[in-house]
């Protein structure tokens, strides 16, 4: 993979444009399908089954209740900057990516830690 910034940036813009088009047609995203895709695409192996994050070569960020905008999310999948492998349209369609985002976005995510006695010992 060519890691040059220019290429990453250009591809990101391109993906952004594509994502914008896709979303003009399907704004909501099918979260139920998204969950299936998340498991099928093996995102869970690095990010955890409930998007809690994990560890690959270094800590892998949590994705539950993702705040990254859907366009940026898709751009990231196509041309990730560091150790995450790229997921091209050959293995992950734009629609599936958008569905996945919808599911991740719908997950509860982090909760107030004070409610967890086991985390305050």
């Amino acid at each position, binding site marked *: 993979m060519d890691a040059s910034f220019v290429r990453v940036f250009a591809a990101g813009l391109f993906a952004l444009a594509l994502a914008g088009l896709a979303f003009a047609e399907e704004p909501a995203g099918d979260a139920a399908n998204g969950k299936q895709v998340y498991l099928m695409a093996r995102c869970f*192996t690095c990010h955890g089954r409930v*998007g*809690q994050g*994990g560890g690959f070569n270094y800590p892998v960020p949590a994705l539950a209740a993702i705040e990254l905008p859907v366009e940026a999310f898709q751009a990231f999948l196509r041309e990730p900057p560091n150790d995450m492998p790229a997921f091209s349209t050959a293995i992950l369609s734009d629609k599936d990516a958008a569905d996945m985002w919808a599911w991740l976005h719908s997950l509860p995510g982090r909760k107030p*830690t004070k409610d*967890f006695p086991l985390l305050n010992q």
Partner: protein
Amino acid sequence: MTTSRDLPRADRRKFLKGAALTGAAALSPAAAPAQAAPPRADLKASAPGPKLVAAETLPPGKDPVNQTSSGGEFMVDVLKALDFDYLAMNCASSFRGIHEAIVNYGGNKPEILTCPHEEIAVHMAQGYAKMEGKPIAMMCHGTVGLQHAAMALYNSWCDRVPVYVMIGNIIEADKRAPGVEWVHSAIDPAAIVRDFVKWDDQPASLQHFAESAVRAYKVATTPPMGPVLLSLDAELQENPIADRAKLRIPKVTKVVPPVADPGALAEAAKLLANAENPVIVCDRLARTPAGMARLVEFAETLQCAVIDQGGRMNFPTRHPLNQTFRARAAISQADVVLGIEMNDFYGALNAFHDRIVRTTYPVRKGPAKTISLGNRDLYLKSNYQDFGRLADVDLAIAGDGEASLPLLTDQVRRLVDEVRRSAYQARGEKLAKARLAMVEQAKSDATIGWDASPITTARMCAEVYAQIKDEDWSLVGNAIRNSWPQRLWNFDKSHRWNGQSGGAGVGYNAPASVGAALANKRHGRLTVAFGGDGDLMFVPSTLWTAAHHRIPLLYIVHNNRAYHQEYMYLVAMAARLGRGIDRSEIGTTIADPHVDYATVARGFGVHGEGPISDPAELAPALKRALAVVKSGQPALIDVVTDPR
């Protein structure tokens, strides 16, 4: 071979062959009843019978059937002088001479630990030595046994741990029985592991053995520590001792680890004292309980960030200056970085990206001075690349980290005036705040998927900590990349943690944990370990050794039903190529059938709980298992977890 030459011309091995051919009929009437009778406690002390007397007095040319001493006995005297508590081994005929001597002459001292695999024996020795600060002995066949032991020796080597290996060999070709004894002999059996043992020898006489045994001990326990090996000729072990009075066991003196050059330390102190953001990174620093206390004192003097890479229990996890989980941020701001007993200082200073074109760049934003202090530069070997990439340091100081810290602290103290003291204090407060934010982040991350099944590693760890935190616990093994304990538990004593495998050779975790638990047993500590399912699959029979020797340990299997680290790599490879991500399970998962580790444990005589996939069932299972552990026995819990 003096002793074998001193023997009456009768060849001991020829005798054995003869005995096998003629069987019990060959036994003299005097010896026969002794064979049939139940063992008598006084047998060893009783006067020699006519056969024994004959064996001692008959002229050369006769074929003796009894002997009154063995070279192995002297070897046992030497092992006792070296003060080994244990000898981990899997029995083998190439060392039957010394084995018999340990059991009967030595009264099972050093105490034999029966291990179903040589890799288990070495890893137990590795875990034990790190916890107890003192090596134990290990013994195996010089060929097949050593081949099994090799990976564990590599782990010990990379982990700088003294493991004292003895192997059996039959040096003289004409003394080998046809068949197995030939395939179990080698002219240089240590060759297979020489790249990753510090020193080895094959003594040619008992006196030679004594001197090499003491030297081996010295070499193994001198930093940088590492495994050593002695090849013991079977003739030397088995034949009678010619003249015990002539044999001498040398004094066992340990080498005092070197304190670094005071001038160099003063230069380092100056750089550190003048720095705006000095950072300490350490890996295998604490050799003894003093190590942690000295590092705390040093860091507090400077009020600087400490990054503990965890090769040993170097720094308390809840110390305000502990910045381990914001290492990148700390180093990026650093103007002076001191690496103490680092193996991979380069890796700490640079980022690396595992991409198609592999890239690396410095983590530091601005120019920074780098200083290394440690034993690493004093000893390297070429073949295996465990020394890591060359770190580009400004000041390289050879000396033992733990031994040199008091002087370095002193040198820094001399430079601290009032102005600096208040600047240091402000720095320390900032770091304390950053650490609290990091802990809060960890707790917040841990809440995600709290009730999920498979259980998250965060929940698993929190449940375990709840059950052990009020005990004198010791965590001696961990699952790959499971950082929750270090992020959230209070590691405040030197026995709270025991480091990792060293060589990343999977199959370390279970046996090394049992070895560390054995050391902890005498101190009354509660030993706990997490370990991967893949790791346990290499050496499940470790559990039998724990049960057999009544070694209390709570072993928690982080059962993600996979060699998960490799599973992720396969996904990454497939993604790069845009194909077949859904085939990444092939060769990477441990499913179909699922392994029931609790049943496996029970089969080896270990209390087994699980599989547990509902987080609510964890606490009761842990309580039951801990009751077993507190009664002095091992227990295992199989926790079906999410990958990481």
